[in-house]
């Protein structure tokens, strides 16, 4: 594999102005496919979620999935797009074994949504508006595995195996207008844009939005032009950049590569590029050619989709609060400082903290646990904080124990380790590890409750004023704590509990 020359990012920025463009494919999480009733499920046995429509057998007829149309409208509305009064499907013709029909059913001249925008907030709070050209409906292709030769790489492969389970899965492709003016923040903006789209479709509930599963896939277009020139340079399109980090790196790399090409006086070749996560570089895919003549024509087997304005408004009413607005609201509700809130967002624990607060913790307690205890552990385990296995209920239980004085903060941290190690609930871990603060009132109160419950008549006598009867209860508590309790304190607590003044 040849290595392309690159300039340093700083030098590239000094000389050139980057223009970006993104095509983000979102797989919808409908129960069935776009045009067939076969299930839309990830990870099943190969070629079991297919029927005659997905396999492109002769004479079959596609029928549009109504829920997929509804989800597409939701995405369009969330991206501030206009929803077409009428739109149609088109055939995109090409020969490749991932598409058994030899065409992909897509939308061409009439997308369902168009002319939108998304305001992207960068890490320091700067807001950058990205214009959306269109969002159109189409279907996913099957999955190819290249075998023989160097494993997994198409170069040198001897044959390919095809699984059509993914063929026909509903997709919405979101296409931006050219993004100008990002300057040196282009890589950061790229990442933030894809993150925002992913967040929106997840929040709408229309996609599982897992990039590692390919639910959200990004093609990143990059071109450079000398500062001050209006005309765009020639672009490259880096395909299937499938993590947020990779989007940032790929854009940065392509800027550096283009700059070196332009510096050498050569023209940039308009081509697709493949992203390689291991080396964080791209390699040449193929140049634009005859093969890109897709001969689109209107799909004769499908009738137009004409979303009534009533239907669109009905759907608009069901849209959840947009993520950016939700963040504003939560920040205010929780009373976090700008910095605290940004740290929470960047750590990716906004949902977790919200759930923990809903479960009964205060905002500051929830933040303390997630940011102080869990994020670090997740980093060590190399998983997302939400995937570590800490439930809101666990945090609420732990914080109650701390507040009640049963355990101190240091012990609470150890109890959390125990819970994560599978030793049971916090209470069980405290019990098993013998972590309770015995000198504290917590365990005493439990023993007192038990003793009072065991001798209700005695409790009644004390309540009635016969304070001397307390000896029987104190004895019970001392027995239960194996003599480790302070008898004087026990006596005080019993009287307090029964509302009697000695």
């Amino acid at each position, binding site marked *: 594999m040849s290595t392309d020359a690159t300039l340093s990012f700083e030098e590239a920025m000094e000389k050139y102005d980057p223009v970006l463009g993104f095509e983000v494919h979102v797989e919808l999480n409908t129960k069935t496919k776009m045009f067939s*009733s076969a299930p839309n499920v990830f990870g099943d046995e*190969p*070629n079991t979620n297919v029927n005659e429509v997905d396999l492109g057998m002769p004479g079959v007829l596609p029928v549009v999935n109504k829920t997929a149309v509804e989800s597409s409208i939701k995405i369009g509305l969330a991206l501030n797009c206009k929803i077409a009064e009428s739109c*149609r499907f088109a055939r995109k013709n090409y020969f490749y074994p991932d598409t058994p029909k030899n065409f992909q059913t897509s939308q061409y001249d009439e997308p369902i949504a168009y002319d939108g925008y998304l305001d992207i907030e960068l890490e320091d709070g700067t807001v950058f508006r990205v214009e959306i050209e269109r969002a159109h409906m189409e279907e996913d292709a099957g999955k190819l595995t290249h075998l023989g030769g160097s494993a997994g790489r198409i170069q040198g492969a001897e*044959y390919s195996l095809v699984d059509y389970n993914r063929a026909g899965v509903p997709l919405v492709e979101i296409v931006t207008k050219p993004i100008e003016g990002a300057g040196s923040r282009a890589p950061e903006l790229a990442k933030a844009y894809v993150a925002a789209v992913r967040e929106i479709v997840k929040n709408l509930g229309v996609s599982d939005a897992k990039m590692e599963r390919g639910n959200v896939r990004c093609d990143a277009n990059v071109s450079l032009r000398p500062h001050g020139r209006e005309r765009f340079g020639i672009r490259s399109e880096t395909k299937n950049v499938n993590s947020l980090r990779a989007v940032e790196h790929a854009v940065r790399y392509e800027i550096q590569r283009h700059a070196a090409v332009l510096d050498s006086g050569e023209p940039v070749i308009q081509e697709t590029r493949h992203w390689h996560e291991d080396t964080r570089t791209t390699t040449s895919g193929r140049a634009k050619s005859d093969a890109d003549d897709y001969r689109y024509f*209107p799909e004769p087997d499908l*009738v137009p*989709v004409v979303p009534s304005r009533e239907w669109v408004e009905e759907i608009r009413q069901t849209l959840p609060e947009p993520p950016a607005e939700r963040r504003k609201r939560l920040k205010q509700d929780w009373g976090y400082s700008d910095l605290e809130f940004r740290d929470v967002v960047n750590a990716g624990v906004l949902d977790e903290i919200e759930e923990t607060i809903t479960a009964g913790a205060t905002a500051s307690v929830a933040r303390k646990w997630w940011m102080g205890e869990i994020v670090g552990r997740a980093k060590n385990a190399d998983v997302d904080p939400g995937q570590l296995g800490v439930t809101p209920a666990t945090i609420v239980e732990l914080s109650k124990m701390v507040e009640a004085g049963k355990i101190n903060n240091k012990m609470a941290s150890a109890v959390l380790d125990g819970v994560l190690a599978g030793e049971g609930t916090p209470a069980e871990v405290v019990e098993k590890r013998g972590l309770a603060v015995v000198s504290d009132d917590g365990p005493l109160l439990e023993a007192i409750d038990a003793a009072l419950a065991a001798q209700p008549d005695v409790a009644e006598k004390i309540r009635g004023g016969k304070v001397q009867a307390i000896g029987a209860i104190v004895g019970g508590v001392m027995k239960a704590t194996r003599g480790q309790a302070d008898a004087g304190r026990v006596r005080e607590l019993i009287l307090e509990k029964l509302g009697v003044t000695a």
Partner: protein
Amino acid sequence: MAAINRDDVAHLARLAHIEMSAEELDRMAGELAVIVDAVKSVSEAAGDGVPATSHPIPLSNVFREDVVGHTFTAEQALSGAPDSDADRFKVPAILDED
């Protein structure tokens, strides 16, 4: 007469994965032009008052509810495949795409 030259036919043949000899290309260049002209007469018949349509029947919004229907087993799916391996269709490696 529609202008369709030999290069246009060669281009179409390549896109459609049809192998054509030099003689066939020459002959088809002439024939295709005649065919296109024949189809073109439809637009003359329609006149200005008839809008273009991609579908002959005035229908829209033909939808299916999102309910799972029938599927094939892998064995059924592969029953017509020239070759298969590990419950998947086996195809020659194709190098010019990703």
